[in-house]
C-alpha cells in the first residue's frame, strides 16, 4: 500500500471547441469546424497522503471543479496522470445525479451501484440513509416531486452513509434548513476527519478550509499558484483576492 492516496502528475485538461452543431450549420459552413482549445487545468501536480485533507481554492472558473471531476474519473486528462491506487472515490456536488422519474428509494440503489457498492451492501444501509435524509414517506415518491431541499438532503445522505475511501467535495459541506445544516455539517466533519479517509474539498469559505484542511492547493486560471501548509497559502490567497 502506497503512502499516497492520490497522486496527480503534470495534469492538463483541455476543453476543445466541442460545441454541438446542427446539420444545417455544418452543411452551410462546410466541413471546417474551428476547434478552440481552452486549457482548464495546466500542469498541476500534487500528492495527497492517505487520510489527509486537501483544500482546493481559487476564484470562479479557475478549474477547481474540472480537476475534481478528473480525479473522480468522469473524464480523463489530456496529458499527465492521476493515480488513485485503487481507492474508491465519490464526488459530492450540488444536485447529485438522480433519475428524476424514479423514486428516492430506487435512486439510492442506483447511485450506490454506480459508486461500486453491491446490492446487499446498499440494502443493509438504505434504512440508515432514509433516516438520515428525514424524507419519511416521500422516499417512495418520484424524485421529480421533491423540493430542492429534499433533493439535496437525499443526495447528501447517500454520499455520507455510503462513504468511499476518497471523498471529493465540491462546495457542499452542509445542506438543508438550519437544523439539517448543523446535523449534516457535523456528519461531514466526522467523515472528513476519519483517519482512513482522504478528502479533497473545494470551497470559497476560507474559514472552513482553515478549520478542516491540512494542506491547501491554490490554482488560478488552471495554473498552480501555491501548494503547501494551510495558513501560508491562505494568507497569500487572501492577499491576492483583496
Amino acid at each position, binding site marked *: 500500500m502506497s503512502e499516497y492516496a492520490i497522486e496527480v502528475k503534470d495534469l492538463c485538461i483541455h476543453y476543445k471547441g*466541442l460545441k*454541438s*452543431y446542427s446539420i444545417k450549420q455544418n452543411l452551410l459552413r462546410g466541413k471546417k469546424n474551428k476547434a478552440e482549445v481552452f486549457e482548464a487545468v495546466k500542469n498541476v501536480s500534487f500528492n495527497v497522503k492517505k487520510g489527509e485533507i486537501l483544500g482546493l481554492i481559487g476564484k470562479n472558473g479557475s478549474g477547481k471543479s474540472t480537476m475534481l*471531476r478528473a480525479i*473522480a*474519473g468522469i473524464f480523463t486528462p489530456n496529458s499527465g496522470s492521476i493515480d488513485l491506487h485503487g481507492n474508491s472515490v465519490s*464526488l459530492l456536488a450540488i444536485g447529485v445525479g438522480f433519475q428524476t422519474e424514479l423514486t428516492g428509494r*430506487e435512486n439510492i440503489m442506483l*447511485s450506490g*451501484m454506480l459508486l461500486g457498492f453491491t446490492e446487499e451492501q446498499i440494502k443493509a444501509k438504505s434504512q440508515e440513509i432514509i433516516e438520515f435524509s428525514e424524507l419519511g414517506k416521500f422516499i417512495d415518491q418520484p424524485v421529480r416531486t421533491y423540493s430542492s431541499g429534499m433533493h439535496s438532503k437525499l443526495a447528501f445522505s447517500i454520499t455520507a452513509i455510503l462513504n468511499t475511501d476518497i471523498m471529493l467535495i465540491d462546495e457542499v459541506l452542509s445542506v438543508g434548513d438550519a437544523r439539517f445544516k448543523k446535523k449534516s455539517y457535523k456528519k461531514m466533519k466526522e467523515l472528513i476527519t476519519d483517519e482512513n479517509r482522504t478528502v479533497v474539498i473545494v470551497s470559497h469559505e476560507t474559514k472552513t478550509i482553515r478549520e478542516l484542511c491540512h494542506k491547501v492547493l491554490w490554482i488560478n486560471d488552471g495554473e498552480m499558484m501555491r501548494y503547501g501548509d494551510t495558513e501560508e497559502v491562505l494568507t497569500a490567497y487572501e492577499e491576492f483576492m483583496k
Partner: protein
Amino acid sequence: MLKKFIHDIKRYFRYSWVSARSQLKSEVANSYLNWIWWVLDPLCFMLIYTFIFGFVFQSSEQYFPIYIFIGLSMWDFLNRTLTESVKIVKRNKSIVSKVYFPKYILILTRVWANGFKMLICFAIVIVMMIIFQVPISWNVLFFIPILLTLGLFTFGCACFLLHYGVYVEDLANVVNLTMRFVFYLTGVFYNIEKRIPVVGNALNSYNPVAFLLSSMRESLIYGKTPNCWLLLLWFAVSLLLCVLGIRKIYKEENSYVKSI
C-alpha cells in the same frame, strides 16, 4: 479493449438491469391501466393495421393478425431503442456529470426495458398461435438466434446514435425521418416481396430488419427454415457494429461531459 469491456460489463451489468426494472416500474406507476398498457398498446395497433390492410386493402397473408403482431413487436423494439438513444446522454446529464460509467450502459438499460416489452408481445403471439391453431415445427427454435441478432443489431446502431447524438443537435429529426422510411421498407404490415415486385427480394435480404422480421414469421407461423447463411451473416455484421460502436464510445466518451 476487450479486457476493459469484460471488466466494465461485470461491474455495471446489474446496474443496467436494476435501472431498467425501475424505469419500467415508474413508467406505469402513475397510469390507471398500469402494465396493461404494455399489452393493450401493441394489441390495438395490431387491430388497426389488421383492419386497414386486411380488410380495406385486402391483404391475403395467412394468419394476418399474427403476421402483423410479430412485425410490430420487433419493429417497436428497434424503433424505440434507436430513437431514445439519440438523446440518451443529454437526458441522463445529471448522472453522467457526476460519476463515471461506460455510456453504452445507458443503452443496455433501454435494451432490457424495451426487450421486456417485446417479450410480453411475444407471449401474446404464442397465445394467438394457439387460438389460430398454427401448426408448430422445430423451426420455431430460430426464435432465439433471430432475437439475439436483432438485439445486437439494435445495440450496435444505438451506440453510434448515442455518440453522434451528443454533438449533432438535430440528429433526432433525421433519425425519426429515416426510421419512418425504413418502416415502410421493412414490411411491418405487408409482404414486401409481394408488394414491391422488383426490389422486394433484394430488400428482404439486404435490409436486416426486413430480413429478421420475415425470418421470424417464417419460423414461427409458416413452419419454414429461415436462410441460415444470411442470418449468420447479419449476426456477424451486428456483432461487428457492436464492437465498433463500443470502441467509438470508449474512445470519445470522455468529451461528452464537456459538451453537454
